[in-house]
């Protein structure tokens, strides 16, 4: 069975304030000269290695898993699944 790497990126919804992202932008990036930065959102990333019959199946397994196991809370978070090539 072929092996695949998938990234599961969990980020807060835009209407939930992200004080960590705000602090990183305000107190690190902008204060140190990167004042072109307009926004920063912090999040969590899970790097998953798995076996699947093909790329589509690998993504489908991860999609099913994140919803079934509430890997993100749909009330507060968004979740993106990306196959790493």
């Amino acid at each position, binding site marked *: 069975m072929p092996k695949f790497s998938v990234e599961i990126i969990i980020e*807060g*919804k835009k209407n939930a304030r992200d*004080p*960590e992202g705000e602090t990183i932008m305000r107190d690190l990036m902008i204060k140190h000269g990167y004042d072109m930065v307009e926004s920063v959102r912090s999040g969590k990333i899970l790097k998953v290695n798995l076996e699947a019959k093909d790329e589509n199946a690998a993504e489908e397994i991860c999609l099913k898993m994140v919803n079934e*196991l*509430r890997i993100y*809370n749909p*009330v*507060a*978070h968004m979740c993106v699944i990306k196959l790493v090539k």
Partner: protein
Amino acid sequence: MPMNVVVIQFSGSTCDRDLVNAMRNVMEWDVDFLWHEKAMKNLEKYDAIFLPGGFTYGDHLRAGIIAAFTPVMGKVKERAKEGVPVLGICNGFQILVESELLPGALIGNETLRFSCKWTNLRVETERSAATNIAKKGDVWKVPIAHGEGRYFLDKKGLKDLNENDQIVWRYTTETGELTKEANPNGSIENIAGICNLEGNVVGLMPHPERAAESTLSPWETEDGKFYFQSIEKFLRRS
């Protein structure tokens, strides 16, 4: 009145003994204090189920999510549907939310810090299992101790929560005013605790078990007792 209640312990529960102490030594209840796998075997015999505070499974991924998937929570859901009071305090509230027994999410405090301090809770409804001896507008002094206590819900959910009288407590000043400063974690609409539609499932971030004895309070208050006395009354009624 004989109280047949259980406190369920998970890996990483840390406020379980505080809760059992308040129940046994302050309220004089008979309490079973059980590991979650053992609790699962005879959960049907209890009149009320308590999920204590702590950091179950290290708060990994998200506070409460891993405990929410333990088999005992399936049984807790069944009992909740039957109308049995299910009370979650702090991490217990997080478990109730992640189990979808209560709506919303509890996300990182806006301060980005773990916060351990006394708060003032205004009772918003008298119909929940944990507030039915209180009067709407009463203010209780109860401490918080959490890093992920910011209650969050979308606009539609919030509207439903308000319309269905599911908001049980809000953080206020000691005179009951709703201010930004009184909100310790950035919770939406200063929400500190909520209940389900029926009022038997109740989640609260602050710790009433740490506020039930005058020796624990700088003001010698015992406001946490109102929480437990309400549950007694709720059980007498049902």
